[in-house]
């Protein structure tokens, strides 16, 4: 019996995170909740080490653990993004958990474990590895969503997320079993080889892909599998929402890309329609439903649904151009959303968090710098050039046009025009309306740092985009080539 090769070095970032999570858990268990800050910084250090490991990993595609685990340029890019996003999420929550009585050492540990799950998702090259990565990530996030267990809304959010997540997992597993049944294997590479040998894919396989896509679409909150998003975003503690909005989205979309392109590269035309449907529905719902929202977190939920729609255009386009567009979009999306949520976390009136859109009124007069930052992010999300958000959309639409998906591109442009309305409404509120009660002026060092860094990124992206564009291009090439080879 041949022993499969195990190259543990390939999984070094994952192992660092796992070991760090367990060590910090032990440390916290012995030192109690006053050690939370130390644990949080420890988690950040672990993320940093993992990031270094990811960045200096050798280029080229390599598989390990019986072909279940793959590392390539695409994985590097997505992992770096996930790690950065997770670090941003943890940094942003430091002040909040201290103020709001959430200071328990399990919190950073759970986020670290969720990040581990995300890395595994990005590297998954097998249906089982995919499933376990998703579950690890989701289970940790269910818990943090309900972390304020005495808060009714947070508990409800956690429970809803859990129940619906279980339904989605069920669909995903059902899809996996159908795919396994019709191809006889769970490995992505093996599935690709099987499909290449067949002239036409069996219908059961397509149905399996539909179910698989449904499970993945739930994780990226694409319409119609998005229904949990607004409720969970609104109910969960704000830094948790921020984390939800950035890191898992990146991982899930990266997984989505790999799970479509590597095993099913031969039958693009068949699954493309699902993605097109998801993209159109998400863009439209994200644009229209956000208009009536008065809670800023809920609004951001719809905004993120819309953004996922735009990103999925890239996947629908397929090919290296589309994947590159997705990666660029994600990088920009992370920066914009992290910045926006940092602004939302600064919305405190006399010690209490407020979440109403109306509370932002007159912010331009009360806190001009914060208002300026938020305005930058809103303009960027609306896609106003020369801010980063414009380029994200631009590349996606170009990819769609090059793939001859004209209808998709046109709907995308229209939806972003509608979407601009509610982003700009916030800007208008901040600068032209009578001021509401002023927010607390103290913002905190970490938050200011996050705000400055993300705002700068969004503003100067146009000038210094070349490394990101190139990186995304190489990553996309790696994924597309891996699927063919």
């Amino acid at each position, binding site marked *: 019996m041949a022993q499969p090769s195990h190259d543990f070095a390939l999984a070094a970032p994952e192992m660092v995170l796992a070991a760090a999570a367990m060590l910090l858990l032990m440390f916290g268990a012995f030192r109690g909740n006053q050690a939370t800050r130390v644990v949080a910084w420890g988690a950040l250090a672990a993320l940093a080490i993992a990031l270094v490991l990811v960045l200096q990993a050798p280029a080229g595609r390599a598989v390990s653990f019986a072909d279940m685990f793959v590392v390539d340029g695409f994985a590097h890019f997505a992992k770096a993004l996930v790690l950065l996003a997770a670090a941003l999420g943890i940094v942003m929550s430091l002040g909040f958990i201290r103020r709001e009585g959430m200071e328990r050492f399990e919190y950073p540990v759970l986020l670290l474990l969720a990040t581990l799950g995300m890395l595994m998702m990005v590297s998954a090259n097998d249906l089982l590895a995919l499933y376990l990565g998703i579950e690890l990530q989701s289970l940790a996030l269910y818990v943090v969503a309900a972390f304020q267990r005495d808060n009714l809304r947070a508990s409800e959010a956690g429970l809803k997320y859990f129940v619906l997540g279980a339904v989605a997992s069920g669909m995903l597993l059902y899809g996996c079993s159908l795919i396994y049944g019709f191809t006889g294997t769970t490995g992505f590479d093996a599935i690709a080889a099987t499909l290449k040998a067949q002239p036409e894919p069996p219908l059961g396989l397509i149905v399996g892909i539909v179910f698989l896509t449904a499970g993945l679409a739930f994780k990226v909150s694409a319409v119609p599998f998005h229904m949990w998003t607004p409720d969970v975003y609104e109910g969960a503690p704000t830094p948790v929402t921020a984390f939800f909005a950035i890191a898992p989205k990146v991982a899930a979309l990266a997984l989505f890309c790999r799970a479509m392109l590597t095993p099913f590269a031969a039958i693009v035309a068949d699954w493309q329609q699902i993605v097109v449907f998801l993209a159109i529905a998400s863009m439209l719902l994200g644009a229209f439903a956000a208009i009536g929202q008065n809670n800023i977190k809920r609004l951001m939920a719809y905004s993120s649904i819309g953004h996922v729609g735009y990103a999925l255009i890239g996947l629908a386009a397929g090919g290296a151009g589309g994947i590159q567009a997705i990666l660029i979009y994600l990088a920009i999306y992370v920066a914009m959303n992290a910045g926006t949520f940092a602004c939302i976390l600064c919305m405190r009136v006399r010690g209490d968090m407020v979440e109403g859109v109306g509370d932002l009124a007159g912010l331009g007069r009360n806190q001009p710098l914060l208002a300026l930052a938020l305005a930058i992010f809103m303009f960027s999300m609306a896609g106003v050039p020369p801010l980063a958000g414009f380029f994200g959309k631009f590349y996606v639409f*170009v990819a769609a046009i090059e793939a001859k998906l004209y209808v998709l591109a046109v709907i995308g442009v229209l939806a972003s025009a509608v979407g601009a309305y509610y982003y700009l409404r916030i800007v208008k509120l901040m600068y032209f309306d009578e001021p509401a009660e002023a927010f607390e002026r103290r913002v905190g060092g970490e938050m200011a740092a996050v705000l400055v860094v993300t705002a700068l990124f969004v503003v100067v992206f146009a000038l210094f985009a070349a490394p990101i564009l190139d990186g995304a291009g190489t990553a996309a090439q790696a994924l597309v080539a891996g699927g063919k080879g």
Partner: protein
Amino acid sequence: MYVAIVFLPLFASMLAGFFGRLLGDRGAQLITCGAVSLAALLSLYAFYDVAILGHTQKVQLFEWIDSGSFEVAWALRIDQLTAVMLVVVCGVSALVHIYSIGYMAEDPHIPRFMSYLSLFTFAMLMLVTADNLVQLFFGWEGVGLASYLLIGFWYERPSANAAAIKAFLVNRIGDFGFALGIFGVFLVFDSVAFDQVFKSAPGMAGRSFEFLGWQVDIMTTLCLLLFVGAMGKSAQVPLHTWLPDAMEGPTPVSALIHAATMVTAGVFLVARFSPMFEYAPNALAVVAVVGAFTAFFAGTIGLAQNDIKRVIAYSTCSQLGYMFFAAGVHAYGAAIFHLFTHAFFKALLFLSAGAVIHAMHHEQDMRIMGGLRHHLKRTYVLFWIGSLALAGLPFFAGYFSKDIILEAAWAVHTGVGNFAFVLGLAAAVLTAFYSWRLIFMTFHGQPGARAPGRAAHPHGHDTHGHGSHGEAHAIHEAPPVMMIPLYILALGAIFAGLAFSDYFVGAGREAFWGEAIKVLPENDSIEAAHHAPLWVKLAPVAAGLIGILAAWYGYIRRPGLPGELAHTHAEAYRFLLNKWYFDEIYEFFLVRPAKWLGRLLWKGGDGRIIDGFGPDGIAASVLDLARRTSLLQTGFVYHYAFAMLIGVAILVTWYFATGHGG
């Protein structure tokens, strides 16, 4: 080194702008002056290295935009043309920076001012070092922005704000043409990099495209569009109206931006695109006619102006006209030569005027001045030097450049050339006349002798007696920090022509310009100019002398004459005083209809149609749709799960219905 030249000013600007409060006035001045002076020294070396030794090069900075076939790299193009511009921009900018220390000493916003100046310098350097059209446009808009900020620097003054907005708007018209030109170039040549465009330019000569049933020449169209941009920036008729108003800015700004550098960007553009313009003779003819007409037209207005800075501003306008018609008759080298010498003597004149204004406590009306030569001896001498150079009297800088321009215009022997030659000669007379009118009014005679009714006096000096005006204020010479830059410029105004004439337009010009400027052999008007007959060579000098004598006669010998003339020819005088009624014509034909249209669209279009349709139409239905979609979000878990299930069912059914797969 080139990177340092370009980015030192930016660096200094950011330091002074963001940390102005931290650095204090003195710190901001030191940093910006130091950085720009260093850049100036480096650019002198660059001039020696590139222009004299011929080491042209390109410095790649980084990739900027890469989208499809639209590739834009960020690179510095260092050739002879750039080197000349580097010296002009950095040199004048450094002197103006230093001068500003004295001139703006009492201003409360010194760091902001210095930061803007440095920012402008950076943008201008971006413009002249650009290697492709997009980068050029970036610099182009950057100088426009800095100009807007500096004209409106004293934002408390409504007139300064109005002037800033006017400059901005008029420039938008030009920039629109320029942007269209860039799009057109990209459309035709599939590239925006200069090298590719210039390489393929000969192949496009004579091709045409169809527009509304007309056969239009491609090269002519592109060149004209680019020239529209140049017209806006360089204040050529009819887009000249913003320049005199721009004098609302502080005087150093006028010297740097509105005399020596930014306004010459248009000339630079035409010279830079000489490889394209050479293949568009019709466009060149337009350039020559517009330039010649502006040279004459601005000169006539200069005759009747009473604001010391406005006189010099119209003179700038007129000299820019010279440069353009030089370019229009294929004498690009002469145009750049005049640009080069003009930078020295016009900056000198402006800064000297600044010294006068400084001495007069920010009084700019020449009618109130007079007899200043006793108080401002050194400034008086400097003014003479500047004016002699401007009028093109022999062996001053302007003599060499203006002569060669007029000779080239004569030497092409075309209708356009002759038109330019005649108008240019007339303008030379006018130039000399208003320059010495300025000198005589300011420095000779009695103070305030020509002052109109006291009510027109803006500073409310009513309490001072007629004759005691000057004494009451203790008129004093400017401090050394202002005078030293003036001396340096004066040296340039005297010797720049003599020293470089051979390189720019003489026998060594082909070796000097290298690849930077392209003139088709059959169009070499400068060569032809050297063989012009003697009377053509002497005519400009004679014109200058006539102008000076006329001024002397009118303002020293018989001081009453101009008043009489104005009285007897009141119509003509008012025509000139009101600048040919250009502003009034624009007001009547453009501004008022625009306002009317705006009001119509606002009340009728926006108010009735859009708002009328809006709330009942699109906007309302969007809101309605938004409300409906929100209703879907019931909050019940089983609704959500059900939605997911329906989604899956629809997708699966879709595949069954369309029969995909086996």
